[in-house]
């Protein structure tokens, strides 16, 4: 049990996927203009992460045992189909959200967080339950990072910034400070 709790906390804050491991930065910079859209995309990502964790475990245990070199290709195909399913579901049940997310919904396929989760899960030899907890931690961590960034950017809209930093420059410096804040959790890992 403590292993599971540790996996969850460590992926949620200590090794936050976005701010410490640099996974999923495209949506981190692309969809964080509004808090509402940001956390919803985070939850959509969490769902895809869960599907991916389960399918990656199935692939690793039953299918890819003799052909590890096909891993990258097999993972990406599974992810692409998973995203397709989520996209159809969101379009049918949440048409407003579908329009807000726009190109970033299909782009979850090329969100490195998803493929990264499958690859890290493989290299750390997680079991099915550990993999699911890992995916939940990663997904909530992603949602947390996206919402934090979006709420800061909403305030920045009204700030008077030097002209050279007005576009992505300032956003990156803000991301740097956020990442520094998350580095504060790093000490939690030393006891393990």
């Amino acid at each position, binding site marked *: 049990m403590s292993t599971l709790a540790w996996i969850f906390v460590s992926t949620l804050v200590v090794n936050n996927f976005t701010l410490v491991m640099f996974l999923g930065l495209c949506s*981190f910079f692309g969809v964080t203009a509004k808090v509402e859209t940001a956390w919803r995309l985070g939850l959509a990502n969490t769902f895809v992460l869960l599907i991916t964790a389960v399918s990656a475990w199935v692939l690793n245990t039953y299918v890819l045992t003799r052909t590890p070199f096909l891993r990258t290709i097999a993972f990406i195909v599974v992810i692409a189909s998973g995203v397709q399913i989520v996209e159809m579901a969101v379009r049918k049940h949440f048409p407003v959200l579908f329009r807000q997310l726009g190109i970033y919904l299909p782009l979850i396929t*090329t969100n490195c967080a998803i493929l*990264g989760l499958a690859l890290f899960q493989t290299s750390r030899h997680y079991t099915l339950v550990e993999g699911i907890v890992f995916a939940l931690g990663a997904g909530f961590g992603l949602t947390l990072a996206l919402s934090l960034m979006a709420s800061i950017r909403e305030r920045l809209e009204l700030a008077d910034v030097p002209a050279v930093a007005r576009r992505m420059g300032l956003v990156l410096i803000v991301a*740097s400070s956020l*990442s520094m804040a998350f580095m504060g959790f790093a000490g939690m890992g030393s006891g393990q």
Partner: protein
Amino acid sequence: MTAVSAPAEPLVPGAPPSATLAQDVWRGISRENPVVIQMLGMCPTMAVTNLLANGIAMGLATTFVMVGSGLFVSLFRRYIASEVRITSYILIIATFVTLADMILAATFPTISKALGPFMPLIVANCLLLGRAEAFAAKVGLARAVADGFGMGMGFTVSLSALSAFRELLGRGSLLGVDLLGPRYEPWVFLVLPPGGFFALGMLLITVAWVAGRRARRRAKAVA
């Protein structure tokens, strides 16, 4: 050169305007630089640029995949149905990434180990899918290869600049060779994750400043 104020749209409809091969190559390095202007492929940009050797290796590996996938996407552009095109492009890209991964592991095992999962993660670099969709699928072989090479080189140049900055100030060395001597107190912050965001932010601000100054000077020359 108003590139900073108007970033290039990665997914433009219709065929790209005609240009010579040299222009196709040069555009990726300068006006449509993937990192500084288009902000594509951010994850490897920040994750592996704490050492110059890693930055160069990642840039060259991405160039290899860009050229290979550009070649094959352009070659099969008449046979790929538009409904399944994204999946087909991803498959072509994943094949070349697997190749690059195996070649790197066989030739430079240390760098391959340092890059770890970020090597197979090239598949998820939006730059590759973006260029396949926006450019390679709409032009002939030679132009697709030239564009892939240019974009890859632009990526390599930006990654090298970023990682040279971070390694020199963060460790006092370049390519593992100690340059600043034992009395230099390393700016460790730069090789840690927040340093990646900070270095890229500084790079973008510098580029914006240079572009703004050039625009002002040109305006003065006209007036």
